[in-house]
């Protein structure tokens, strides 16, 4: 009942200055629209750039690195224990990059409840034979099904199908950069040479484009079995085990644990790609800063219109107080006006923001390095809308707070006697 009366008076005052009220509300609408659009676009871009790397990167990679012995012989001598050791000469021994007991490790990982999936890989450094010259390259022997499931491998194969890699013996999916240099097409045969000097023919069944050009000039994909054949190794020969987790934040801790448990090198995604997270968070920070600045400017607009309204409606405020409205009631009236501007402006802003992001999301965006992206990326995260709505209410409340307080303090005697 009481609120209804206050709302009625607020609406009447709003209507009296409809144009200015609309301008103030439009300020909020504009800022919320830009806030939503900016954040959606920025988040979409962040996701795109992150996915470029993160989708193709395992959360934890287990591998074997060739390192010199950590404990040099001289350190084991009790005689020189207290002295500085100049003699450090034991070089790495001739061991393979192979992960030992890979089958047992894979079995153990498959039973780990944190692990979403694993994909074994064998990396072979090779040379592509192009006429008289050799180009350096790398062939990754992969488990096609696991790679598709965990790393959306199919998305990056621009020509041909991944299933052909599985079904055609001795086949290869060439990096698009390498393929261009070698002038090959699907169905052609190419020759490669391993670092040991063995030649091996491979049939091209597709092209691969990761979006990172340097990678595409070098990398190619074959099945695990094919690479093992190239190297002349048994079926258990695996150089990398890629692990995807359910919760990416557990990666550093689990990497440490796997390192101890399996006695292999283990690197987590956060350590390997720390620069991406930094870039994303700074871009997000900038968008928030711009959005909030816009809102604050809109807040000043509301502050102005309310101040003007109070100045103009001094008489009305005085008579309301003289006839029994308390300072609190007057305060409530002007806060209601401010919040109405904020709510209406904010709600329209959310709608326009959604509309504008949808429009941007339809604009064609073609780039050679991103084969799967056809339009500008937009992230329609409801979180942005929630924050936008919350901010619009908070800023309008703050903008209305001081003028309302001023209105509630108006002394009716001063106004009435001043006439």
């Amino acid at each position: 009942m009481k609120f209804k009366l206050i709302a009625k008076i607020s609406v009447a005052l709003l209507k009296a200055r409809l144009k200015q009220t609309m301008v103030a509300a439009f300020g909020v609408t504009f800022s919320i629209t830009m806030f939503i659009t900016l954040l959606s676009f920025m988040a979409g871009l962040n996701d795109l750039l992150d996915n470029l790397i993160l989708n193709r990167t395992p959360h934890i990679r287990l591998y074997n690195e060739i390192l010199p012995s950590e404990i040099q012989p001289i350190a084991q001598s009790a005689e020189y224990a207290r002295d500085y050791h100049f003699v450090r000469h034991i070089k790495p021994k001739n061991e393979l990059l192979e992960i030992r007991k890979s089958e047992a490790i894979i079995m153990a990982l498959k039973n780990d409840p944190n692990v979403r999936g694993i994909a074994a890989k064998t990396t072979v450094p090779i040379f592509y034979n192009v006429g008289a010259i050799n180009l350096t390259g790398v062939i990754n022997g992969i488990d096609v099904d696991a790679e598709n499931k965990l790393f959306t491998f199919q998305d990056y194969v621009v020509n041909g199908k991944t299933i052909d890699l599985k079904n055609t013996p001795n086949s290869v999916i060439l990096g698009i950069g390498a393929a261009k240099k070698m002038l090959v097409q699907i169905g052609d045969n190419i020759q490669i040479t391993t670092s040991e000097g063995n030649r091996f023919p491979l049939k091209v069944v597709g092209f691969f484009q990761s979006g990172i050009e340097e990678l595409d000039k070098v990398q190619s994909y074959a099945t695990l079995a094919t690479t093992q054949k190239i190297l002349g190794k048994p079926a258990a020969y695996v150089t990398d085990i890629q692990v995807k987790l359910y919760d990416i934040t557990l990666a550093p801790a689990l990497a440490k644990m796997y390192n101890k448990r399996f006695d292999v090198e283990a690197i987590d995604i956060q350590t390997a790609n720390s620069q991406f997270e930094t870039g994303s968070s700074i871009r997000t920070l900038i968008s928030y800063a711009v959005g909030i600045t816009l809102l604050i400017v809109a807040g000043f607009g509301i502050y102005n219109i309310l101040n003007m309204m109070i100045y103009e409606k001094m008489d009305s405020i005085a008579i309301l107080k003289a006839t029994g409205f308390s300072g609190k009631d007057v305060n409530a009236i002007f806060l209601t006006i401010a919040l109405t501007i904020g709510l209406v402006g904010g709600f329209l802003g959310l709608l326009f923001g959604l509309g504008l992001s949808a429009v941007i999301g339809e604009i064609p965006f073609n780039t050679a390095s991103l084969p799967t992206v056809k339009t500008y990326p937009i992230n329609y995260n409801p979180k942005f809308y929630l924050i936008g709505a919350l901010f619009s209410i908070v800023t309008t409340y703050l903008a209305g707070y001081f003028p309302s307080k001023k209105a509630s303090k108006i002394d009716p005697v001063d106004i009435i006697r001043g006439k």
Partner: protein
Amino acid sequence: MNKKVIEAIGISKSFHDPITVKVLSDVSFSINAGEFVSIVGKSGCGKSTLLYILSTMDTSYEGELLLDGVSMKNKKDAELALVRNEKIGFVFQFHYLLNEFNNLQNVMLPGLKFGKLTAKEVEHHAYEKLKILGIEKEALKLPNQLSGGQKQRVAIARALINEPLIIMGDEPTGNLDKKNGDIVFNIFKELAEEFQQSLLIVTHDLDFAANTHRTITMEDGKIWSHGLPTDEITKAKQ
């Protein structure tokens, strides 16, 4: 015999800006229920200041103010607003109607704020008050469509809406011509005599004052006499 609706006991007030000036000193009087009292005096004698203190809008004074036997000292802003809403009807020199609302709504506003009746009942009461004042036909018009006299009558209806203990007026006929001034005066008289409404009106119109039940004459912040200013006083003032 009669109940005192308002009682002022030793009310004093000073303005301190820029120098201390005593505008009211030791003013004491009371008004009984159903009395029609006027306060007269020259400009600056403190009569309006006294009225605003009696209306609870001005709270910086010394002395004691009893409304319906209850002290108004040490009451909070919101409590005083309630008292004004319930017990005091105020008519100013200027009508102070809200142009955003029609006349009926203007009359209803204090009633809706009071909140003891439903909106329908308040509307019915407002119509009745407008009828008493003979302007029920203008109920749905906006205030700026009325003449000055009509506006003042709407303002009186607004003062009456919560059936207040007392109606206070600060020069209610000051802005009106003779004809409209007489209409408003007759309304006050009718309210006092037919409805036993207590009234306290500040005026400098001696004809107006002469026709009220009782007149209080003020001079230099003091009550000069409880009666019409005599020739002597008038002379002394000149």
